[in-house]
């Protein structure tokens, strides 16, 4: 989690790739709130002409923080348990 933008080890990249390879509908994306400063988390509609769904409580001031947060959410989604790091 110290280097969320990579490059990652081969093993970690394998996990990250699996996480990124989702259906377009519902895929997490960052929506610009303030250009180059602040981003909100959102999910794609997967349908042309239908806007993203904003997750208003998830706002980031760095792209690294956003990657960490989404990694944790996806980890829990895939494994069923929260990510606990010591």
């Amino acid at each position, binding site marked *: 989690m110290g280097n969320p*933008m*990579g*490059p990652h080890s*081969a093993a970690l*990249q394998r996990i*990250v*790739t699996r996480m*990124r*390879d989702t259906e*377009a509908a519902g*895929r*997490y*994306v*960052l*929506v*610009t*709130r303030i*250009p*180059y400063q602040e*981003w*909100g988390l*959102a999910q*794609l509609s*997967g349908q*042309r*002409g*239908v*806007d*993203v769904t904003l997750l208003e409580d998830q706002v980031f001031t760095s*792209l690294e923080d*956003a*990657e960490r947060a*989404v990694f944790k959410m996806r980890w829990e989604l895939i494994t069923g348990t929260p990510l606990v790091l010591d």
Partner: protein
Amino acid sequence: MLEKKIAGYSDEISVAPGERIRFMVSCEPGVDRYQADIVRLISGDRQPSGPGYRDELLQTSVSGEYPGRSQETYCGSYAVVPDGPAFDALSDLSLQAAIFPTLPALRRACIISKMDIEAGCGFALWTDPADGLVLQLGDGDGGLREFTLGQALVAREWYLVSATYDSSSGEVHLRQQLLDSYARDTSSGEVKHDSKGTAVVRCNAPLLIAAASREEARGKPVGEMIFNGRIERPVVASRVLERSEIESLRSDAVPRGLRTDICAAWDFSRAMDTDDIIDISPNRAHGRLINLPIRAVRGSNWTGDELDFNHAPDQYAAIHFLDDSLYDCEWDADFELEVPADTPSGLYAARLTAGDQEDHISFVVRPPRDRATASLALLIPTASYMAYGNSRGGIEFGNELLANHLAVIGPEERYLNRHPEYGNSMYDNHNDGTGVCYSSRLRPLINIRPTHHWLWQLSADMHIVEWLEAQRIPFDVITDEDMHQDGVSLLERYSCVMTCSHPEYYSTNMWDAVHAFTQRGGRLMYMGGNGFYWRVAYRDDKPGAMEMRRTEDGSRSWASEPGEYFMAFTGEYGGLWWRAGRTPQSLVGNGFIAQGFDHSSYFRRTADSHDPRAAFIFEGIDDEIIGDFGLIGGGAAGLELDSASRAYGTPPHALTVATSEQHTDCYIRVNEDIGHMLLSIGGQDDPQVHADVVFFETPRGGAVFSTGSIGWSSALFHNDHNNNVSRMTRNVLDRFLDPTPFA
């Protein structure tokens, strides 16, 4: 959160002093007025580490406030045949066509209509999601009678459909026959209805193919209920045709015995390089296509023996209609510029501002048409801008696996997604899944903006403009379209021609011009990656439109159907230039080998770089490592990479003066260079995944310098332009502007 609400386009992309250019603008509610100015673009990248946005105001009569208004765009393709005597004597009626519906379950869609819905006159043939074929006849009194077949059509299958009406018996006969043969088929069938007193009521509305219409706009019927898919050989006849006669009309001539009874029989295999549809009946009721449906596509009788439509046009008598294709928004102009006579050549824009809203409609002022005004020309890749224009991948897919990080969606992407009617890029698919093979610049191209946060094409090319401005080197600006029209004579006025960062799409005229320039003593600086890759076509009678087929090979977001590799605009074989015997390596020394979009890397000098022929390139540079910095991905070797290859045609005497290394596994070798699948195709394992900086001399004292990487120009700005990428680029440019011939 900022919402984008204003956008526009211009009718021209390159104008000379004294010429006129018109600007069309549309505003969403909330923008009642906007300020417009003409500015010269200096730099665009607004990221905190970048040079920021800068422009210079050009004093013109344009500057001022304008009322904001919303302008309607009518997308979707169909054909219009004017009303005429061909359709006068209808009391009995037959309608038929072969159809290949691609979205039959979406909604009711029109195959043929000649109908005034208000007055309740005329006829229309539809496909219905549940009922399949539907015939509507107006009752002449504001009402419509409707007759349905009652069986749904299967998507992506050819059917012969027909509807006949017998005025003496009142019988309506509907047929839909699957042309392929399956062990089980519940979609074919026929049904007879007693119409009980209906008649075919004369209607003076135009006839439409693939659409119906209730209103006119801009002098044309507005197409609605557009049919997605292929229609072949539609026929209107003035008597009840027998089944055998319906079959006989599937050929490329009207049988002699039927000529008196055929009102119109359109053969779409004729005049495929135009918007005309040709009626081969004696009535000659020709029509026009709206919004670029796809021509030169396989028909129902395609055998697979002939892959080139030029050789067997009768097997390509279908047109693929689409409810989201678009040629020209046809908005009303908001303002017009007559380029002042003394305007220096450059990259300009109409800058629109309204509170926190802005848009830049960029265009080029080329030098006067008869001369150059500098020794250097910057060649703006407008063909590639058109190919990428309105790319929807960001907001539709997130492109997360390509980039190996979360996608960032700006107000621009959300605006584009609110406007599907602005059409797609050549990287997208139409609503029915068909790859987009036509583009147009006569519509707002939302990502082709100097300040777009996705640094790609124009926004990335602003790094080159910014550097040239900072170097105080005079330069003219010309475009792909200028070069396509004027040929090498345009380039020959310059000592040196510099490309932008990603000149990927080339017409034959453009390729010939660049090649001839290098062969006649010209100096070419290819400042990017993945250039000279796809072949495209323009049509002289269709300004602002472009065609491309993604054929047998290449790194691509969709693939053309087999047998559809030849371009309707010109008849030329489409796809990779490599497949037409013209490799990028033979033109510029290197060619596309790998791409990735996470971290960019750096170059290392090679033994070749110490060759005396290359000494001028490295003057004042002691570093072994070149470009371990940059505004895109942090390095000069990034995004799309080109490498030298003797096998692909790099000139034998070319020098590879620097080679990139240490690319991440996000960088993967292009699929057209992969034979068998191997484990080692990523940057960490595959030594092929690298960029080469190449230099070679050309005949009559010319030379080519190719940077091998889209990321190169993103490194120019680093450390206030004091860096080895900037120095190398400057060294080459100075030498290339020096008339002393190369050996």
